[in-house]
């Protein structure tokens, strides 16, 4: 085999391994998030949260079950092994690299991940995508990618997801209850 052919094989193998490792990473529910450190200085506001199982356990010990908000949190995180949030707000449009957001989105094409819903609002220039990782008929991962011209948010939740409990966060943490649902009742 000539050198060019060997070189090409090496490149292809490398690319396959990269894709496989990204898929493996994504397949257990946890996404590989880019290093956004350089954005922290540019952003007017930033939220960086990394809570693995150990930190979640620690947080749970400081939640007060008699407090309605804390009680809702306790219920919502049952079965969850990790929560990762990156949210950046800027003073200028598109000050964040779209390629980084796209890199996260690519991981969600790995087997098991399904797009649950995509909402595009032309008026607010807002795009929200929600993905879940389904394994053996259970949701074992959740990913949210939300982008606007001056803000983007990535949420990744690992573990057994109870969408109903997350939905029941409405009314807590300053999140409004859906008037439509109240009207249906």
């Amino acid at each position, binding site marked *: 085999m000539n050198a060019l052919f060997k070189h090409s094989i090496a490149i292809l193998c490398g690319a396959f391994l990269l894709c496989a490792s990204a898929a493996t990473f994504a397949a257990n529910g946890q996404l590989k998030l880019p290093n956004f450190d350089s954005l922290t200085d540019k952003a007017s*506001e930033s*939220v960086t949260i990394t809570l693995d199982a150990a930190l979640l356990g620690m947080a749970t010990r400081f939640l007060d079950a*008699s*407090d*309605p*908000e804390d009680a809702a949190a306790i219920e919502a995180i049952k079965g969850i092994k990790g929560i990762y949030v990156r949210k950046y707000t800027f003073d200028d449009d598109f000050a964040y690299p779209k390629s980084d957001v796209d890199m996260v989105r690519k991981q969600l094409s790995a087997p098991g991940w399904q797009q649950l819903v995509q909402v595009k609002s032309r008026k607010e220039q807002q795009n929200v995508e929600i993905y879940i990782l389904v394994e053996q008929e259970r949701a074992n991962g959740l990913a949210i990618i939300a982008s606007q011209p001056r803000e983007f948010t990535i949420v990744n939740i690992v573990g057994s997801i109870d969408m109903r409990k997350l939905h029941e966060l409405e*009314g807590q*943490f*300053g*999140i*409004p*209850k*859906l*008037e*439509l649902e*109240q009207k249906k009742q």
Partner: protein
Amino acid sequence: MKASEAWSPDELLTRASAGESAAFAALVRRYQRTVYSIALRMLSDRQRAEDLAQEVFLQLYRSMDSIDSDSHLAFWLRKVAVNRAIDRIRQEARHDSEPLTEAAAVVGEVGDADPLLQRRMAELVSQLTPAARAVVVLRYQEDLDPVDIASTLDMPINTVKSHLKRSLTILRARVLGAAIVDDVQPSMSERSP
């Protein structure tokens, strides 16, 4: 004119810490409006607001030694008043206490503003969730900026801003009569008779 009215704020504080009741009474007179109004906007009931305001001043009396300055005193009073009110609301929610028999939409004296609109707005504020209500009261009654509100409520500043933004949207829409999602608890008119 009472002698205490001639004392500077720092002198009032020093004398009150030393146990002079006239000085402490002057502090009560100076801050009663602030403390009572916070309690009233949070609890929506005059009697409960007065009880809570009295407890705040009693706690102040016991804690005078820990107050460093006049500005610390103002911060301390707001913090204790609003946090006690939030605790009271949550305790009552857990014990399923009797609902309020009236929403105390009390409006302060204002020039030529529309009293009905003001009453409506005060009612709507009283229907926000405790945390959102506290943020709105501290911002628009006490004129605190979001950083000070975050410090008073021990709340992340992003959460403060989020509460402000949502509450204004909801209040504005409700006042204008638009139907949007609500961050409200059921008002008295919506409860079953």
